[in-house]
């Protein structure tokens, strides 16, 4: 009998600690326990056998760290083969009569995935894939991915397991005392991610004792439609009289775990500090407990690497601004590969209170696959909201879904066969909540009834792939009422019917409804309120529109979803007070604004500097404002910094204020104007993930008129060289903070000298000094950002 079948009606017992027992047997500090499969097979087999004798159904092979980072391929093969043999032998030798299985144990790699570490996601997938393949070859019965404390790495391991085996996969994460993974994911976020990807059982192990784990287990039981597993530690290790003991006894451990079984846990065992005695006690005392049935929770969820968004009663806001359609500046940013522009749009929408960000970077003239993948990876480094992957290209969709750290929303599928054939396999493989548009080969039907019929067909087709209706959200399509005055009514009716007849969630791109009409905000916000009243679950909307937010918060307050109206009150306080602005405007003359702008930049007041620049632009030439106001202010602060009268944070605040002023001016200038001095390619070298210093240099250079191309951190030499080559950039700036990454800097300089001899190279960073910079072949050393500006200015002067 397969373990997943057995699980339907039975509790499954796992084994307990391995590492702690090996230490007692003489495993030395730093020695790799996996080697003991070969050197001490009898010791390993005996531990496994003791667990089977104690009543374990599943014993995990001694392969926690068995991967190619630690062993050669040859040794890894031998280790896994021996590990599986040891477990099999134990199962045969054990007198226990229970069902017995062998699980391939997979622990974390020990490396942090990019962007916060240097381990690439695909490299992690390949690493786990190799272990999985060897385990499958040796005939294990299931795979246990355990003690994972990072959601992204967990995804990599599960993906590797699914892509390289048909075995059941159990996935267990290690939580901290704050109830989150080390990298921030909540239990609900992990449930959402792992269930979406098709794990067979999920749960928690290690790090804490059973008592401390129980609130986390409760969360799992609340959200999971899969069997939940737990493998707690025997508490924490303590030194008593020179001996190490764990502070939770077998009795206490058993009591706590039995309570979890009563609450619904179906698979249990122990982790660090637990022994066969703990498992024996657990099996003995929990045997009489009736396993609770595993229920489908019907919860529609998406997640980021920190939290899940559950589609309950409160409608979900999806920010629509990361989308080039009809946005000149956004298109330009995409063409110029200005990822930062996209990131700022993401951050700004989050500050406006959206729950999810739609990400659409499709433009005919760019490589959408690359751009969508990059945008998703970079967004998830700075914004912790779940993302909605929005593309018509299935290849781009897969690239983005694969790299997405969580369970994404997917925009979209529709009733056309071609669309469902392309999208549903991706939803099945990577998980996701997919937006289904109610249109098909015949287009968008006029009536609500016909749209609901398409929705039913989509549901049926999804079911063939094993995609349940909780993972579909229908968009019955808002069409412009200026073309057909019945269309608003029909869309609202379809929302209501899908909600009540199909019991499914709905989403709308609200703003299409007003196309072709004046004052679209009025129509949009009212339509939004009506749709909410008809049961709309989510809206793709513009969070910068106060009118839309007014409708939203008023609806929550009026429909009894805002206790004490507190969200509405909070929102109302953020709205501008028109009168006071008007008063201010009449008070001052333009000349006063001029000196005022300088003052504000020097003080570093961002918002005020932007606002003042707007006023000044009414009467002055943009270039005059730059020459007479912004640059003198920057020079005053810069000089103060060099004389050590102004300190770095103040310098940066002024620089940010100046940048805010520049942004306002930029918007007012015709597109063709290029006020920049020259291109400056900037990067933190390969292997180094520090970029605060580099970002400071970037900000200052931009303010002084350089077109900075920021390649980010941990950048390989060939990427830097190819960018300098492509741009024919006269200057490149390289940063390194650690002695260990200076060789990468030297390497980069060598390549630049070879391929781009025209380029002047400025280096900086904590470990460098003028002599060192010269030794590795740089042209200049800059001790700080201001010096980098001076050097770049000199290079520019010489060129012209």
């Amino acid at each position: 009998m397969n373990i997943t079948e057995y699980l339907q009606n039975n509790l499954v017992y796992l084994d307990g600690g391995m590492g702690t027992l090996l230490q007692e047997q003489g495993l030395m500090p730093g020695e790799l326990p996996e080697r003991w499969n070969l050197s001490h097979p009898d010791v390993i087999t005996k531990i496994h056998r003791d667990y089977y004798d104690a009543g374990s159904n599943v014993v995990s092979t001694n392969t926690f760290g068995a991967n190619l980072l630690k062993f050669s391929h040859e040794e890894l093969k031998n280790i896994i083969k021996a590990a599986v043999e040891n477990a099999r032998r134990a199962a045969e030798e054990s007198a226990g009569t229970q069902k017995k299985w062998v699980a391939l144990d997979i622990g974390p790699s020990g490396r942090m995935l990019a962007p916060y570490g240097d381990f690439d996601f695909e490299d992690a997938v390949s690493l786990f894939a190799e272990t999985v393949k060897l385990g499958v070859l040796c005939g294990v019965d299931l795979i246990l991915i355990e003690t994972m404390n990072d959601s992204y790495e967990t995804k990599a391991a599960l993906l590797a397991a699914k892509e390289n085996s048909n075995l059941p996969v159990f996935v267990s994460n290690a939580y901290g005392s704050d109830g989150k993974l080390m990298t921030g994911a909540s239990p609900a976020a992990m449930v959402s991610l792992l269930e979406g990807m098709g794990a067979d059982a999920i749960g928690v192990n290690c790090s804490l004792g059973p008592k401390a784990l129980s609130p986390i287990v409760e969360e799992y039981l609340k959200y999971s439609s899969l069997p939940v597993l737990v493998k707690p530690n025997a508490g924490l290790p303590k030194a008593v009289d020179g001996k190490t003991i764990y502070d939770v006894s077998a009795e206490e451990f058993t009591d706590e775990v039995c309570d979890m079984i009563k609450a619904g846990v179906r698979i249990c065992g122990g982790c660090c500090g637990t022994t066969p005695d703990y498992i024996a006690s657990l099996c003995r005392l929990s045997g009489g407990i009736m396993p609770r049935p595993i229920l489908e929770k019907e919860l529609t969820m998406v997640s980021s690497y920190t939290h899940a968004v559950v589609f309950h009663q409160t409608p979900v806001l999806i920010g629509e601004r990361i989308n080039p359609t009809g946005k000149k500046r956004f298109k330009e940013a995409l063409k110029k590969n200005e990822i930062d522009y996209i990131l700022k749009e993401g951050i700004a929408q989050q500050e406006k209170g959206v729950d999810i960000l739609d990400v659409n970077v499709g433009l005919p003239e760019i490589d959408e696959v690359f751009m969508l993948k990059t945008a998703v990876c970079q967004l998830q480094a700075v914004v912790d909201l779940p993302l909605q992957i929005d593309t018509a290209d299935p290849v781009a969709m897969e690239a983005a879904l694969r790299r997405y750290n969580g369970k994404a929303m997917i925009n979209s599928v529709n009733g056309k066969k071609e669309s469902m054939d392309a999208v549903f396999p991706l939803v099945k493989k990577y998980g996701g909540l997919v937006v289904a548009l109610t249109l098909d080969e015949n287009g968008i039907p006029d009536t609500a009834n016909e749209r609901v019929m398409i929705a039913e067909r989509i549901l049926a087709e999804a079911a063939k792939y094993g995609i349940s209706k909780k993972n579909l959200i229908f968009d019955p399509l808002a069409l412009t009422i200026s073309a057909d005055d019945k269309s608003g009514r029909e869309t609202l009716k379809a929302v209501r019917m899908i909600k009540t007849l199909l019991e499914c969630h709905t989403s709308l791109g609200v703003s299409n409804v007003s196309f072709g009409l004046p004052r679209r905000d009025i129509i949009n916000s009212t339509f939004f309120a009506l749709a909410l009243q008809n049961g709309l679950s989510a809206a793709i909307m513009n969070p910068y529109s106060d009118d839309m937010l007014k409708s939203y918060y008023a609806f929550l307050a009026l429909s009894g979803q805002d206790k004490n109206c507190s969200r509405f009150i909070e929102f109302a306080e953020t709205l501008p007070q028109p009168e006071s602005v008007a008063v201010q405007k009449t008070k001052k003359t333009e000349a006063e604004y001029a000196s005022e702008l300088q003052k504000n930049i020097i003080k570093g007041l961002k918002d005020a500097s932007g606002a003042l620049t707007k006023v000044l632009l009414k009467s002055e030439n943009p270039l005059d404002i730059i020459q007479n106001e912004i640059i003198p202010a920057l020079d005053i602060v810069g000089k103060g910094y060099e004389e050590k009268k102004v300190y770095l944070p103040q310098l940066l605040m002024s620089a940010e204020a100046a940048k805010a002023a520049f942004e306002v001016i930029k918007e007012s200038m015709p597109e063709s104007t290029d006020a920049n001095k020259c291109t400056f390619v900037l990067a933190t070298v390969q292997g180094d993930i520090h970029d605060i210093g580099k970002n400071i240099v970037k900000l200052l250079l931009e303010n002084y008129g350089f077109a900075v191309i920021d390649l980010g951190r941990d950048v390989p030499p060939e990427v830097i060289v190819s960018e300098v080559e492509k741009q024919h950039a006269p200057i490149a700036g390289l940063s390194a903070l650690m002695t260990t990454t200076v060789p990468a800097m030297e390497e980069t300089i060598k390549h630049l000298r070879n391929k781009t001899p025209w380029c002047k190279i400025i280096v900086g960073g904590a470990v460098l000094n003028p002599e060192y910079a010269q030794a590795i072949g740089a042209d200049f050393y800059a001790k700080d950002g201001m010096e980098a500006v001076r050097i770049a200015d000199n290079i520019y002067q010489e060129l012209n």
Partner: protein
Amino acid sequence: MNTVFLKSFAPPPVDRLEVLRYAGVKEPSPETEALLDDSLQEAEGVFSYAVCYREFPVSFCDGVCDLSFAKTESKDLFKNLSGSTSVVLFAATVGITLDRLVSRYSKISPARALMLNAIGAERIESLCNAFNQEITKEKKALGLFTTPRFSPGYGDLPLALQKDIFAVLDCPRKIGLTLNESLIMSPTKSVTALIGVTPCDRKNTKDRPCSGCSKADCAFRRTI
């Protein structure tokens, strides 16, 4: 001495002057003070303070320092540990959330990113101080003394020692701390260090924090 122990800490109080020192500020302007206040408020609840540690016997022979888990010829460490019979090896981190916050502000406000980074530097140092004090107290109760903590990268102690340290402390599993190929730790606000345990008080060494370091031009060097 075969077990890695764990400690988690309540946050030690923030030392504003230290934060400002890490941010490169001697006399803060009112705007800088305001930035610091805002940043401190934002950073509240962001940190998780965790330490794992393990004690090893240490011995010295022909200029080689045998730490049981690794041997090193570092003269500076030799000097630092002289007279010690064992070392407490520890790894400490304040978690990855700050790295995320700094990344986010790098895109929208480098000034705030700088200030948050300085707060992180102050936090991890405070955590190390808190842990160090506890170890010193524990040892004192046994009639023993401790030496000032010493980290890979200080003086001539090679960063490569990090690999050995990570192997014996099981840092990824215990406290979520990882090492990359360039020997940089992630989360970035993390420290690994050695504290020597000696039977006699070495009154002759002034325990000035920067006295053991040869980087005389360091912007952060303490002169008192």
